[in-house]
Structure formats: C-alpha cells, structure tokens
C-alpha cells in the first residue's frame, strides 16, 4: 500500500496547491485538519511544531509545510511527491497564462472577480491567525512573545528573518539559563 500513500500525499497537496491564493499562510488550518484529523498521518501537537518550523525557515510556507509533512509520512520520497503536488497546479497555470492569456490581469471581469477573492483571502488569514492563536498562546510568556513580534514587525518594520533569528537566540539562551539553575 506504499504507492497508495504516495498518491494520497500527492493528491492532498495538489488540491491545496489549486486553492492556495494569497500565499500559503491562509491554507495552514486546512492542511493541519487534513493531515491530523482526516488522514491521521501526524498528531496535532506535532503538526503545530511542523508548521512552526516550516515558517521559521526560508522558502514559501506552503512548500515548506508540504516538504515537512511529506518527509514525516514517507521520508525523502514523501517530501518530493508532496512538494511536486503543491507546485504543479500553479506551474501549469502560469505557463498557460504565458501562452494564451498574456494580459489576463487587465480583463475587467477577472479584475472584479479578484476583488472578492482577495476579500476571502483576508478571511482565510484571520481564520488561520485565530486558530493558531488559540492553540499556541496559552500563558503570559507566549502572549508576551506574540505581542513583541507583532509590534516589532508592524510598528518597527523588522524583517521576519531578523525577528526569527532574535527569537531563536533568546529561546536558546533562556533554555540554557533554566538548565544551569536546575
């Protein structure tokens, strides 16, 4: 049944690739539910770790998540099949647009449709934020890191890369201090 599992991985991420408008973050709750609740491939707690790691590393979030889930489920083969699945829909769409619809973004109907679709993307992002907020922010320390990160990025325009480097350094340092104490 191993081929079956690889096909399942490919199809799941292909499906996600088709609807992943507005970057990958909006799709994270869908991926989490499909992988942990529907397919039961990875426990929910571990899935949240995976999503955290995937966003802390360079690259498009949705591909990082696909790679990480694929690797957890079926090692290297799984990671390749999942990333291919998530990339192929947009690959086909972009090539078709280059060939046949060079000025599709100027078409009035298309432009009108996408005003609404971008409105849906805003809702998807809020949905993603709210779901992960409830799962990750459980005590005062979490809340402090969350507020610190938001202010650093929104008010002081800190780049996500620098923020992540700061958080990684601080977390490891605090962990080290805790260890020495005990």
């Amino acid at each position, binding site marked *: 049944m191993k081929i079956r599992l690889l096909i399942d991985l490919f199809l799941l991420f292909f499906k996600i690739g088709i609807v992943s408008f507005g970057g990958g973050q909006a799709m994270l709750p869908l991926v989490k539910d499909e992988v942990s609740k529907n397919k039961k491939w990875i426990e929910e707690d571990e899935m949240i770790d995976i999503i955290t790691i995937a966003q802390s590393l360079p690259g498009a979030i949705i591909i990082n998540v696909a790679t990480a889930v694929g690797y957890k489920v079926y090692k290297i083969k799984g990671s390749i099949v999942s*990333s291919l699945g998530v990339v192929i829909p947009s690959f086909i769409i972009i090539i078709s647009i280059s060939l046949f619809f060079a000025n599709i973004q100027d078409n009035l109907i298309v432009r009108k449709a996408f*005003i609404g679709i971008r409105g849906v993307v*805003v809702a998807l992002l809020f949905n993603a934020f709210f779901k992960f907020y409830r799962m990750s922010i459980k005590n005062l320390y979490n809340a402090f890191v969350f507020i610190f990160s938001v202010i650093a990025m929104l008010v002081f325009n800190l780049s996500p890369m620098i923020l992540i480097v700061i958080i990684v350094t601080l977390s490891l340092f605090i962990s080290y201090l805790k260890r020495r104490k005990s």
Partner: protein
Amino acid sequence: MSLIDIFLMFFRIGLFSFGGGYTVISLLQKELVSNNLIRSEDFINMVAISQITPGAVAINIATFVGFNNYLFVGAVIATLGIVLPSLLIVIFVIKFITKFKSSTYVRDLLKGLSPAIVGLIFVAFANIAKIEFIEGNSINFKVILISLISYLCISKFKIKIGIVILIFGTVSILIF
C-alpha cells in the same frame, strides 16, 4: 544568462526568501531586472498575475521567467532552483528536530518560536486587510462584508475553501 546561471540565481533567491509572501518581491525585482531577464513593466504585471493565481508569488515569477527565456525546460529549471533550497533545508531541520524531539533545548525553542509565528500570520492578515479594506481615503464596505460573510462560511459553516472562493468570485463580478 545561461540555463545554469538562471538556476543558480533562483537557488540563491530561494535561500534568502524568508517569512513568505511579499518580502521576497523586492529581492526578485532587483536580481531579475538588473540581469535583463524581465522588463520592469512585465515584472509588475507578473506580480499582478500572481495575485490572481494560486501559489507563492516568488515561485510563480520563477516559472514565468524560466518559461519566457528557455520555454518548458527553463520553467522547470527555474522553478526547481527556487524550490530546492527550502526543500533541502526543511528536510535537514525536520530530521534533526525529530531526532532531538525530547531535548529541552528543542522544546524551549519551539515554545518561543510558535507565538512569534502566530505574530507573523497576524501581520500578514493586518497588512492585506489594510490594502483590501481601505481604498485611498474611503473604506471599502463591500469588501469588508465579503470578508465577514466568507469568514462565517469557513469557520462556522465549514464550507470548502474552493467553493467559498468560487461563490465570492462570482458575487463580486456582479456587485463591483
């Protein structure tokens, strides 16, 4: 630029594209326009097209530039170039983290990172909401209404995302 140069350039961009979404666009623009791989106005068009197609903007642009310079082979090579760094890094890190899952350092690291990542998602939401909801000096109530109703469809009524996108895409052709 040769095919190998294109591959290496996108590999480099893939290595440094952090935080997803729009942070990578300025890096892409600088590299692509200065190497004459894309004209400035085509780049802006491509960003617009990426907003109306699924998938990550950076990867879509890689596919487009590869295709325009070396057709299908170019599209494959450029897309691979931008995807490969994160593929390798993610596999390496997941392997490492899984191995040391019970280490207190790894636990504390993930505990610190996880709320920061929630912050990252919030910032993505806030930035896009600002762009979509505010039009010059006025507030775009129709878009806000679409966002509110589609949020209810997704979170309360559990309607599939593809269907919600189709419905509101159609609705907004009629009301705008």
